[in-house]
């Protein structure tokens, strides 16, 4: 397949991904090289400015008053006591939102400030600006809100038939996939019900930012986010001003993982700044952060797999229910992903899959690394193990027998035309040599760790395997693009792109791409801003290496063509005979060369491009259609020691293989894989937002626990499976999400193997094993 990517909007020129035929310069600083992050040293030295470090003269601190109730009517609000406090500059309510009262990524159903009703614990009700953060907090506490508490709706399965808790109703989306002959049945069937708890992204840098008002009624916002331009669109609508009057700059981001896709404090900061005429800063506390962003959807999943006696899948039936919480966020896209990938990376001739994302009075759920595929991977991989047991077959052999690949079709009917090396990924991971992991004499290396609960004799060992996949980029007909500009002057390249660096390493990659394409060494990255460049799209969906990487590559190539054309004209040769290399313009025949710095002295060679991926289609009423651009898969093999009497688990090794297309920076690839596995381990064993009638019981790092170094095992990367993806810049696939998709399922499988228990729910809690 060659790339069909190509069309353009205003101002930019057309760019096309050129794919695997590209000559890649694996030099010491270019694409493919192990180049260090430009922000790496400042970050480890504590010199990197995060969004919480912003400062301005004479600025105010903002604070948000949030609902303590999951469901209540607001009968009245008395801001008098807050306004009367010395040092308070503004107290704002829903009526003070001048433009559109609501916002949302896909459906604008979420109030910027609650108006007459609150629908989840933590919903913003009022804003305060004061000259000291404690005064702002105390003033917010002094606001008297008269709530009439109502019974919360907290059961997603009951939501569709319950009384609507929002004018838009209680169903965000229902989706049905009907594929193949639904009347067929298998000789062997297995059935199961599985549950996934509500995981949090648990980034380290809480929501923070600063808004600065301008005299002309415009506002400048420095904020940590995943997508500057879509923030601007929503902010401008709520403020009721033109988008040009809202200028965003990316401030230092301390992790994202999906939690910064939705707005949090953006509108609030701008409202307070425009109202007071002063810069306003907000930094959420850790507790507030847990209430201030969306979480991963909790899931309940019913599955029935049909196979013939040889193990070949005949049909998959599934019903998936996601609790979307109080507002839409990205629920409609998450349930589409969960449904589209519900059968796993397998050839499934027939499938009947229904998905529901419902509204409840639980905290809103939206994007998190893996985006729907994580939940269903736990379902389909649990089912594959169950099927293997029913067939008395090796679980890896069963997966290999059914592995999907190029030329096969997904349950959505989509033909796989790109690379999709599922079988190779399975083989590389499952058949990698198993490291000798002796049981330690040190109790800290056993289940229970520093708590000294467990001796080696108290443990049983198990190994589990899982494979998962998801789409890269946005789907279902969304015209997804990224913009980038390149300028070369005096031999130095400057790249401008609004891609949000959230830790994934785009800043490194942009420099590597510019070096490879332009033969330069020094590459300056301009700030990521809305005012200087078009949208880069979201830093999510494993898409920025492809999309913004593609935009940077295209912009550099256009500048290269301009330079070579000028030099060729001067030298009276064809530009085809010239290359940029090592800071030189060189003719391939070796006859002529010139310093790039001289060629571009004082010149302004520049290009501004918009890069689009191949178009996709919406799903039809049967959930059929070419809805996705590309896919990536990964496999994980987990080895665990379990103390069955206490229900404690110690993960000893995770071995993985991943479909990466092509590795552009080995260290960054390893970082994504190790970090993604840590998040998967957290979901398997410990990470869960605990709810009680809509009330969050553990909004802190004391009680929302994430893995420590004592919990993370060694990660063995058995293989990067490098099959360059046609149409992708340099053949590279996004690699951020697959490590999180199947690692949880592999760990759960390993605990099952050790204990012989069903364990249909993650996270697996000690009581689930000990009392199960």
């Amino acid at each position, binding site marked *: 397949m060659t790339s069909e990517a190509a069309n353009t909007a205003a101002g930019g020129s057309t760019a096309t991904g050129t794919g695997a035929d590209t000559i890649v310069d694996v030099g010491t600083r270019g694409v493919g090289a192990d180049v260090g992050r430009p922000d790496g040293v400042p970050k480890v030295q504590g010199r990197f400015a995060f969004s919480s470090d912003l400062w301005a003269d004479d600025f105010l601190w903002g604070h948000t008053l949030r609902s303590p109730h999951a469901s209540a009517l607001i009968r009245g609000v008395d801001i008098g006591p807050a306004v009367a406090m010395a040092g308070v500059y503004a107290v704002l309510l829903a009526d003070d939102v001048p433009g559109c009262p609501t916002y949302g990524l896909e459906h604008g159903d979420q109030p910027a400030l609650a108006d007459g009703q609150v629908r989840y614990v933590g919903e913003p009700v009022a804003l305060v600006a004061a000259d000291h953060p404690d005064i702002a*907090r105390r003033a917010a*506490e002094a606001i008297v809100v008269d709530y009439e508490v109502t019974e919360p709706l907290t059961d997603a399965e009951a939501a569709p038939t319950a009384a609507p808790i929002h004018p838009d109703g209680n169903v965000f989306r229902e989706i049905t996939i009907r594929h193949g002959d639904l009347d067929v049945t298998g000789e062997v069937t297995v059935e199961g019900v599985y549950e996934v708890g509500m995981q949090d992204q648990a980034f380290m840098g809480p929501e923070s930012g600063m808004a600065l008002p301008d005299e002309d009624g415009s506002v400048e916002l420095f904020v940590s986010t995943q997508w500057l331009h879509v923030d601007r669109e929503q902010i401008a609508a709520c403020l009721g001003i033109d988008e040009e009057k809202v200028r965003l700059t990316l401030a230092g981001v301390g992790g994202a993982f999906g939690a910064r896709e939705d707005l949090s404090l953006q509108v609030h900061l701008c409202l307070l700044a425009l109202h007071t005429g002063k810069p306003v800063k907000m930094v959420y*506390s850790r*507790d507030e952060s847990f209430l201030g962003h969306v979480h991963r959807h909790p899931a309940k999943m019913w599955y029935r797999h049909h196979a013939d006696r040889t193990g070949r899948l005949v049909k998959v039936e599934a019903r998936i229910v996601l609790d979307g919480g109080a507002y839409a966020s990205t629920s409609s896209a998450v349930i589409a992903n969960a449904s589209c990938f519900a059968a796993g990376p397998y050839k499934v001739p027939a499938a009947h899959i229904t998905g529901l994302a419902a509204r409840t009075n639980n905290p809103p759920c939206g994007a998190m690394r893996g985006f729907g595929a994580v939940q269903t991977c736990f379902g389909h991989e649990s089912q594959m193990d169950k099927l293997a047991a029913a067939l008395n077959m090796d679980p890896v052999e069963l997966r290999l027998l059914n592995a999907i690949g190029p030329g096969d079709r997904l349950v959505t009917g989509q033909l796989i035309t790109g690379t999709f090396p599922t079988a190779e990924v399975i083989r590389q991971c499952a058949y990698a040599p198993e490291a000798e992991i002796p049981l330690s*004499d*040190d*109790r*800290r290396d056993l*289940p*229970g*760790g*520093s*708590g*000294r*609960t467990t*001796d080696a004799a*108290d443990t049983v060992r198990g190994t589990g395997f899982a494979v998962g996949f998801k789409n890269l980029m946005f789907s279902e007909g969304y015209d997804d693009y990224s913009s980038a500009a390149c300028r070369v002057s005096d031999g130095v390249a400057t790249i401008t792109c609004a891609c949000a660096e959230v830790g994934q390493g785009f800043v490194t990659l942009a420099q590597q791409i510019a070096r490879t394409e332009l033969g330069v060494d020094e590459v300056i990255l301009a700030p990521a801003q809305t005012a200087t460049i078009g949208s880069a799209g979201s830093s999510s969906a494993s898409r920025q290496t492809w999309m913004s990487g593609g935009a940077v590559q295209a912009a550099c190539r256009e500048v290269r063509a301009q330079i070579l054309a000028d030099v060729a004209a001067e030298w009276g040769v064809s530009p085809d005979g010239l290359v940029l290399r090592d800071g030189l313009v060189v003719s391939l025949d070796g006859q002529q060369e010139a310093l790039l710095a001289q060629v571009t002295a004082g010149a302004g060679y520049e290009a501004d491009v918009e890069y689009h991926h191949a178009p996709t289609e919406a799903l039809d009423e049967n959930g059929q259609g070419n809805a996705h651009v590309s896919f990536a898969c990964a496999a994980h093999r987990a080895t665990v020691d379990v103390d069955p*009497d*206490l*229900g*404690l688990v*110690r993960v000893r090794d995770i071995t993985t293989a991943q479909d990466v297309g092509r590795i552009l920076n080995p260290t960054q690839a390893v970082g994504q894989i190790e970090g993604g596995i840590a998040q998967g381990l957290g979901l398997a*064993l*410990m990470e869960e937002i*605990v709810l*009680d009638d809509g009330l969050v*019981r*553990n909004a802190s790092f*004391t*009680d929302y*626990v994430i*893995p*420590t170094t*004592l*919990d993370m095992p060694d990660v063995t990367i058995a293989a990067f499976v490098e099959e360059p993806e046609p149409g992708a810049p340099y053949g590279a696939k996004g690699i951020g999400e697959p490590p999180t998709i199947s690692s949880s399922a592999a760990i759960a499988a390993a605990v099952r193997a050790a204990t012989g228990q069903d364990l249909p729910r993650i996270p697996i*809690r*000690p*009581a689930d094993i*000990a*009392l199960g």
Partner: protein
Amino acid sequence: MSDVVVARSLDEARGALAEHPDATVLAGGTDLMVEINRGLRRPSHVVGVAQVPELRDWSIADDQVIVGGGVTYTEMMTTPLADAAPALAQAARTVGSPPIRNAGTLGGNLGTASPAGDTLPVLAALNAQIVVVGPDGERRMALDEFVVGVKRTSLRPGELIVRAEMDRPTGRQEFLKIGPRNAMVISMAGLALVADHDARAVRCALGAVAAGIPRARDAEAWVSERIDWDNGAGVDDSVADEFGQRVAAASSPIDDHRSTAAYRRHAIAVLATRALKRAFAQGDPSDA
């Protein structure tokens, strides 16, 4: 804003507390600052005691270990204190991360008096006397007299925790704790067990499974009669199992967001059985 006095001696601390008997005492701040940062407490007066040298004292005698209220978890984990009170070291090792253990103190753990305070079961099992000073001079209390409820102590206004004086028995000591991950956790259930060969007694106390820090006195008495003190033989499995059940009967756990009452009771039985077997196992003890 709080009025803060930084005391540099025990007398200064006593003086400051005499002047403001309702003052909050600040040592490592690992509990207090969390509450202040969350707006849960706004003390009008604070007396900082981290720089009071008398509180940093500790001493080891043949039959007793004395640990000042200002001794940090890190110090408790370090030789020679760790060798003299091994269970205290084991408990200290489970508290937070290294920075927390460098700041947090024994006195702070006592003053917070959380049922999940990790050193508290150890102090109870080691028959510790808690020594406090106040306007009326010095008072001494056993742990179950000092901790009287969830985060409630019998400290009177103006009183300061000075030290804990605990037994140094000849037998082994065990502290075991369960949390939702392998380090840096609030206890879901914890247990300290001490074998006192001179007194021919097993002592066992529980954390995070009751409003206070219960001693399993019935189970202690029952098992102490079934230990072969003279010959040092190990404990029969059946005795260890029944001991576990009897210890669990001394717990009165609750369901909360960290775990369930049923799991906590079950876990205490398992921990008690294991701790007893370890305390009377043949060969060298493992302090890992």
